[in-house]
């Protein structure tokens, strides 16, 4: 198993400056690098040897980096990682990066399904790395970047378009009227809070957008997460009727709710269990009710 990429020399160059001048500094660095790589490789082999077959899992990780020669052609690297009870996909990736290949690149931060950084395509389905138990998956585990987004490097995808769609629905509370007294709270009824509760849980991970067949074919489609965001505010009674009409205009535009074909893919993959299809359908009915007047 040789998954190590020829590393570009950037760090630890000025460490030892005691060698004779006959060698050029470049030669010396290259020699040092080769030596270090051989060491790392040997260490990795030893580590992998000593792993008991029983308690290891194999990760097949998508690798690609347009800026590194030898990684421009996408490929899969195998990593054997010791398994422990409760281990998540993210734990395994962190192990592989810290022990085998420091160039393995993926986003993560909170490790507790809050920040939304690590939505990945694991064994053919969008999952949140830190919320996915390895014990639930078949070995070997195939880890890829989210489909339908450009890959920047390894498991990192470009989220720009997703964020644009989120911004397009004006995702902020914006009431028609605010209390005269600036310090007064804008209270919401319990019922109304219950209604929007699930929709407020979105962590902007992008899993739903990536799973959606329609969003893949129509770049202008707002997508499940953005529509859910729109739902969260359109259904908030504190905003008032004018604001709701403005919000409905965004929602019911050509590439808004009407693109949804109720495939339920987004609802299946959402790590926060938001009933996305249900919210989209409710907004469709809301839009119809808003425009159909029989009197």
């Amino acid at each position, binding site marked *: 198993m040789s998954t190590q990429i020829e590393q570009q020399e950037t760090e630890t160059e000025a460490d030892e400056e005691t060698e004779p001048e006959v060698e050029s500094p470049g030669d010396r660095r290259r020699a040092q690098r080769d030596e270090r790589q051989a060491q790392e490789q040997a260490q990795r082999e030893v580590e992998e040897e000593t792993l008991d077959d029983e308690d290891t899992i194999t990760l097949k990780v998508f690798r690609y980096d*347009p800026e590194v020669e030898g990684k421009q052609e996408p490929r899969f690297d195998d990593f054997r990682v010791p398994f422990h009870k409760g281990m998540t996909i993210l734990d395994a990736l962190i192990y592989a990066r810290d022990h085998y290949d420091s160039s393995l690149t993926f986003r993560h931060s909170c490790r507790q399904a809050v920040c939304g950084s690590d939505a990945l395509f694991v*064994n*053919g389905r969008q999952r949140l790395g830190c919320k996915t138990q390895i014990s639930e998956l078949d070995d070997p585990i195939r880890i890829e970047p989210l*489909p339908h987004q*450009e890959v920047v490097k390894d498991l990192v995808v470009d989220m720009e378009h997703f964020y644009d769609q989120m911004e397009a629905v004006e995702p902020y509370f914006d009431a028609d009227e605010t209390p005269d007294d600036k310090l007064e709270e804008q209270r919401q009824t319990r019922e109304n809070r219950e209604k929007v509760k699930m929709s407020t849980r979105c962590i902007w991970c992008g899993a739903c957008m990536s799973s959606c067949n329609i969003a*893949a074919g129509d770049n202008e489609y707002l997508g499940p997460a953005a529509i859910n965001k729109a739902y969260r505010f359109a259904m908030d009674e504190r905003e008032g009727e004018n604001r709701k009409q403005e919000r409905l205009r965004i929602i019911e535009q050509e590439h808004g709710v009407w693109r949804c074909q*109720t495939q339920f893919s987004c609802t*299946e993959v959402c790590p926060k269990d938001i009933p996305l*299809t*249900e919210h989209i359908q409710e907004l469709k009915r809301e839009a119809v009710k808003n425009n159909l007047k029989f009197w």
Partner: protein
Amino acid sequence: MSQSYNRGTVEDFGRWREFTAGMWAWIFHKFTGWVLVGYLFTHIAVLSTAVGVDPASAQAGSDLYTSTISGLESLLIVRFLEVGLLAVAVFHILNGIRLLMVDLGVGLESQDKSFYASLLLTGAIVVASVPTFLGGKLA
């Protein structure tokens, strides 16, 4: 930044391992819908060219319409295609009802179960129809 690697539609599709019930329902619904449209046009084309206006031969049972129909029914492949047509139509109708429920927001949590129910019911109806379609003598 250098250009990034675009994985392309075909490659994406090949990597998909898990379709869920709702996605299968969508695929089948599109497929059956278009098969039905195809059948509708074939149906119109065949029958509209098979209506003769000859009362005498109609009386004798040897007019163009009767001979076209019995000619088709004498082919085994046509009998099987009829079973297939029924399957496609029944699934489309049952899943169509499921989709109407989904549009009305009724029972969204059990949309997967209603899809499986549509499949099972389609299967049962199709099996029950086999004697009728394949039973008669291939004249």
